[in-house]
């Protein structure tokens, strides 16, 4: 995905301190890191598994490391980054809880964004049709989806509470990354994408 299609980056940017060190898990083509580098002099690495994305990162001067997040992150030292970011990939990992723990081991703070399986359209799809939801933001059939761990905002917040993770900021938006008062009232029903800024 190119930078233009990712307005979530604009939400994340204010959470990142200038001149800080960032690790971006599943960094795609490096759009976020390039933006943070250009606007805030942020340094760091992206981790990515797709070859074309890695080639694209390198060409734009974004440092990227070919690494499967599911194979662990033990090559990164404790508290060696200011922020660890993961946008729209947590639901694709085999052990999302472990990843979140790892993010806060490696970074002082973390930013996580993910699609909300509790959105009313998803609930309605499953509830009325009795089939796994397929939509614009979840465009895959059940047998081919990379999204192997579906969860809702509430699920995530329960996990944070259980693990003693502090939620510093939460933004809830639709898939065009617009927020409105209805979403703020009923985030778990009306929000499509959540952006969480967390720490210990």
């Amino acid at each position, binding site marked *: 995905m190119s930078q233009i299609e990712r307005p979530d980056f604009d939400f994340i940017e204010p959470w990142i301190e200038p001149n800080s*060190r960032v690790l971006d898990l599943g960094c795609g083509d490096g759009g976020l890191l390039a933006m943070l580098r250009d606007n805030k002099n942020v*340094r760091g*690495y992206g981790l990515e598994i797709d*070859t*074309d994305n*890695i*080639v*694209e*990162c*390198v*060409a*734009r*001067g*974004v*440092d*990227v*490391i*070919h*690494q499967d997040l599911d194979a662990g992150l033990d*090559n*990164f*030292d404790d508290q*060696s980054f200011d922020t660890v970011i993961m946008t729209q990939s947590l639901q694709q990992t085999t052990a999302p809880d472990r990843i979140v723990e790892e993010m806060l081991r490696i970074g002082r703070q973390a930013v996580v964004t993910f699609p909300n399986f509790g959105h009313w359209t998803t609930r309605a799809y499953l509830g009325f049709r009795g089939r796994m939801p397929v939509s614009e933001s979840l465009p895959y059939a059940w047998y081919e989806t990379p999204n192997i761990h579906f969860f809702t905002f509430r699920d995530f917040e329960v996990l944070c509470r259980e693990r003693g993770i502090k939620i510093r900021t939460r933004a809830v938006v639709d898939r065009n990354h617009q927020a409105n008062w209805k979403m703020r009232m009923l985030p778990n029903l009306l929000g499509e994408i959540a952006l969480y800024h967390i720490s210990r």
Partner: protein
Amino acid sequence: MPTEIPADSVGLVEPQTAFFDEPLPLRSGRSLASYQLVYETYGTLNAERSNAILICHALSGHHHAAGFHSRDDRKPGWWDACIGPGKAIDTNRYFVVSLNNLGGCHGSTGPTDIDPETGRRYGPDFPIMAVRDWVKSQARLADRLGIQQWLAVIGGSLGGMQAMRWSIDYPERMRGCAVIASAPKLSAQNIAFNEVARQAITSDPDFHDGHYYQHDTSPRRGLMLARMLGHITYLSESGMREKFGRELRQGKLHFSYDVDFEVESYLRYQGENFSDNFDANTYLLMTKALDYYDPAGDHDGDLARCLSQSQCRFLVTSFSSDWRFTPARSEEIVRALVRAKKPVSYLEIEADQGHDSFLFPIPEYVKLLSGFLASLSTEGAPA
């Protein structure tokens, strides 16, 4: 034998020679009083002298990396697939320097040359070179060419070790470092293969303790065996299956100990061809340089601390089917660079050609390398 030089070739090139009188102190404690380096250049050095790239060669490499020496050449330089106009290392944009390392047998001072102290060929008495000695000699060549800072130093395998050594010894003299299919040091298995290769050479009756020149002979069979063994380790199991399978040379088994299978014929050809064109003492020396390489050794084995001196951006690349220097070995380098908080990118490229993959113009690899170099040149010189 190209009747027509391909459009993406650097064309006809001529090696040049640089003489050095200043003694070169070596890691072994010895020194070379004077020496010469043979090198080639491709492309044009720009007015700012900011577009120069150094190519470091591997075990059996030399200065002739691209283009042709004559229209009768059967094959171009060893890395022609990646060096040329529009190629991964684009000679329309960059000034590429490729040299033969000291101890080599392609024109730079080495075992086949006359030792000025004894008046006879050095042979086995040529000082065993360490990677850092080569790098020092390369830095002197850079001085000679008026290149204060390389845009990048690039190498595969043993060449990658030189590139890494550059970043430690001359951090301010390079903006990028591409370490391809390499390792921070050899494993026991790597050293074991090298030792078998050396034994093959030194146990050849024609070796004469390395003074075979005086007997007008050379340990051809030993060198051939060494190369055959090496060659197997440069390919992958699946690559060999793909290329040769169990194809028979003449369609039937001979029930003799002569060549039955294509793979045997191929290895013999490679070995014979190599032993016609390479010096056994150089081969021994190069394998020792590999065995001894361990830059972290000066830092209690802490590679991160060792690399903390570097100031350049790194590109580390490995190949999935490389079992001589596996991706895990490249990841050791990456891990150390991350711990040292250095700019590094890493990609393991899916490829079937084993360790030799780095010589091939694999599309993702070409894009990766060219993208890395382009990003270095657009970044502007670091402050």
